[in-house]
């Protein structure tokens, strides 16, 4: 087995394991920490796919900034051990069925379809680099790029509007 393949399998194993741990951990803070680990593993995958810019972005934005937001949210919720939500068996069974069906469908779809392999002689190794990304993003994807700023603006406006301090609110 060549080293890249073994790294790939090792990373995939680690990704799946930490993703499972996100779901199974009791404490939400542990979940977030496992999620960070998952993001790091995904970064490894990005590097294997020769997409270095995405790898950096994944670390900076997801593992860095977004996870800080997650931790914030957990701090807001003031979760106590005793008021852990009790799910009924019916919910659990229904969730199992839905998730299982989705898994079977996707697994079957992956197995049955033929994914075109790449040609190593024609493959452009620079395709995931930041230059090619920039060239595509700032020409072909001009409109979505600019409108993404509208999306950010609307999110910002909404957040400050809803998070505004009200008269008579307790300050921490």
């Amino acid at each position: 087995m060549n080293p890249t393949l073994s790294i790939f399998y090792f990373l995939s194993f680690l990704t799946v394991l930490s993703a499972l741990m996100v779901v199974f951990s009791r404490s939400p803070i542990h979940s977030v920490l496992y999620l960070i680990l998952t993001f790091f593993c995904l970064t490894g995958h990005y590097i294997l796919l020769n997409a270095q810019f995405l790898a950096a972005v994944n670390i900076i934005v997801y593992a860095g900034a977004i996870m800080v937001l997650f931790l914030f949210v957990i701090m807001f919720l003031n979760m106590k051990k005793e008021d852990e939500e009790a799910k009924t068996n019916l919910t659990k069974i229904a969730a199992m069925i839905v998730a299982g069906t989705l898994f079977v469908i996707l697994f079957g779809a992956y197995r049955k379809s033929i994914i075109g392999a790449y040609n190593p002689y024609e493959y452009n190794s620079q395709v995931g680099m930041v230059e090619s990304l920039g060239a595509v993003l700032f020409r072909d994807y001009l409109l979505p790029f600019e409108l993404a700023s509208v999306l950010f603006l609307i999110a910002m406006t909404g957040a400050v509007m809803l998070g505004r301090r009200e008269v008579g609110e307790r300050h921490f």
Partner: protein
Amino acid sequence: MYPIILLSVLGIVVLFLGFMKSKNILLPATLLFLALALGSNFIDWNQGPLLYFYGMFSVTNLTLAFNAIVLISAFLIVAMTRGFQDDEEAQPAEYYGIMLFSLVGAIMIIGYEHLIIFFVGIEILSVAMYILTGSDKRNLRSNEASLKYFLMGAFATGIMLFGIALLYGATGAFSLTGIRGFVSTAAGAQSYILYAGLLLLLIGMLFKVSAAPFHFWTPDVYDGAPSIFTTFMSTIVKTAGFAAIFRLLSHSFAGIYDFWYITLAVITVLTLFVGNVVAVYQDSFKRMMAYSSISHAGYLLIALTALTAQTERSILFYSMAYSVATISAFGVLMLIAKEKSLDGRPNESYDAFNGLAKQNPLLAFVLTVSMLSLAGIPLTAGFWGKFFVFSSAADRGLIWMLVVAVLMSAVGIYYYFRVVIASYMKEGNTGKIRVAPFYQIVLVAATVITILFGLAPGFFEQLL
């Protein structure tokens, strides 16, 4: 194309107009901006199919007509927002700004040619809706609705994104034309990843237009949100959402109709059934309207399932009729709910309408016309909407679906007439409700449109 740019800029302008001392300028300014956007929409009229920004965004007469419906609905809704000035908690500049931005998203998903545009557009639209749903911060139900909508919507967006990713994996293209090119090949028609991607993408889209079984958020969210934003949600999001689904199915996946039509047919029947039957058991008019919007999603889905050459026109006509009737119904509801408020909370039950016709004949008439249109009674726009939808289904030979739809329309008449009966037959005292002139114009205009297109549906065809 032009309205996107114009509305993005003008939304920021409205946001900053909020800094002025007088809040009275906001409403006329927003209306003016919407009118400008509507005017700029027609710059491209009859220019033929155009592609903008490296094949990202397409403009045809029909997408322009959808834009016009969305913009006119927004205009009518914004004209009804006079209450913001009196409410100290309200932040009108933000509301208007976010509404204008959300229209950017709506127009993007009406005319997208590339799935990235679709995704950014639906995000803009949804984020705006999450915010507007929770804008009544003092109201616990509004907060709950917003959170529920946000969590479920985020999940649906995730599913949709996964679907887009699978589609890209299968076809190697994000553009609708590229996907169509792949679907038309022999390998494409058999690609299971493509099927899985299409299903996941459809689930996300159907969630946004609240088709059963993805409708569970709808009643709570429509009920909890402030009425004015419920109107916005149930008209604009639905119109744009159906335009988007139609675009996806007709432009890219018409080649594998046999694959997705069964799924969509099941969802259609389920939506019709759930929407109409559960609406019967509601005691609150607003909640009934939420279920009614689910049932109308079902009727629109019939047109999508049929997918004939007439489908786009029938969706267009139907969403126009539905939007106008919904706006006038909610307009009357808001007036009455405010007049008869209990403990400072608007009273949205059927009982609030008792005896409406005695002292407010105009309001009762407007309400009746809108209910008739929603129920699909002849001489209203709603009848022709249903007629076009049903005839396109008949063209495709979906007779069993038509039977269900007609039965469900009959159920619909029952709950739409409850409020009409309450306002004409039941004893009660609503008191003389003072209607602001602007508000009155909106209600009358919506009623006139409903009756006009009810009497002469051909007129609409000539407009296109």
